[in-house]
């Protein structure tokens, strides 16, 4: 099982001009939680992942992916913003 989840939160936030606090407010979690998810330190629940994807009007797979996912379409480190 992957211990870290790749994500594109930083990129998507930038595209939608949202701060961590803005996103946190929209999905009703703390800003620290968004920061932890973004840095790959906390794996969100399915519900939270769906809510985050909902904010960006995209699919969960477009925000989060397993490092070894065979259907992975975007590259990135654990923080997943292409770095």
């Amino acid at each position, binding site marked *: 099982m992957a211990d870290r989840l790749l994500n594109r939160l930083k990129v998507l936030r930038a595209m939608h001009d949202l701060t961590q*606090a803005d996103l946190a407010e929209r999905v*009703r979690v703390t800003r620290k939680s968004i920061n932890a998810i973004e840095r790959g*330190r906390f794996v969100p629940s399915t519900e939270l992942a769906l809510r985050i994807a909902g904010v960006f009007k995209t699919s969960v797979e477009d925000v989060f992916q397993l490092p070894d996912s065979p259907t992975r379409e975007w590259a990135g480190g654990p923080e997943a913003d292409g770095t």
Partner: protein
Amino acid sequence: MTRPTSSDIHLSSKTEARHESLQVQLLIALTLGAGGSFLEELARTLGQGFVESVASTAAMVGWFATLLVFFRMWQLGTLDREGQYLRGAVDDERGRSLRLRAVYFAFVAMLVVQLGLELAAAVLESQGGPMLGARLAANLTFATGVIASLGGFLYLDRFH
């Protein structure tokens, strides 16, 4: 779900910061209260009258401060107008996950303290020292539990 306004976001960030500050205050108050109670009992066991009275005063101040912080936490909860956005600012799934880990850490810490007490009691008994009372053991275990769980949570919340 309605979109949060910038005022909601500002209020939520402020609530998050205030809640964190209250948690630090609670840790200090509990450390003073529970630690003072333990020291008071220890000083009584060792026959240190002056230390006992100082520790007793510190414990009373600590317990009073604890009540005050609890009241302020309750007050913060009631300020949550709609409850809709602000609740997430103080209690979300990451917070619950960290609390669980902190409680586990506190449980292990209490077990270690119990083991230490057993060893200390055995050593003192073999050397003809003072007997460790049940109240002393209870105070130490309680102090360890509350300080380790709250301190552990604050540590994880800040550095994890």
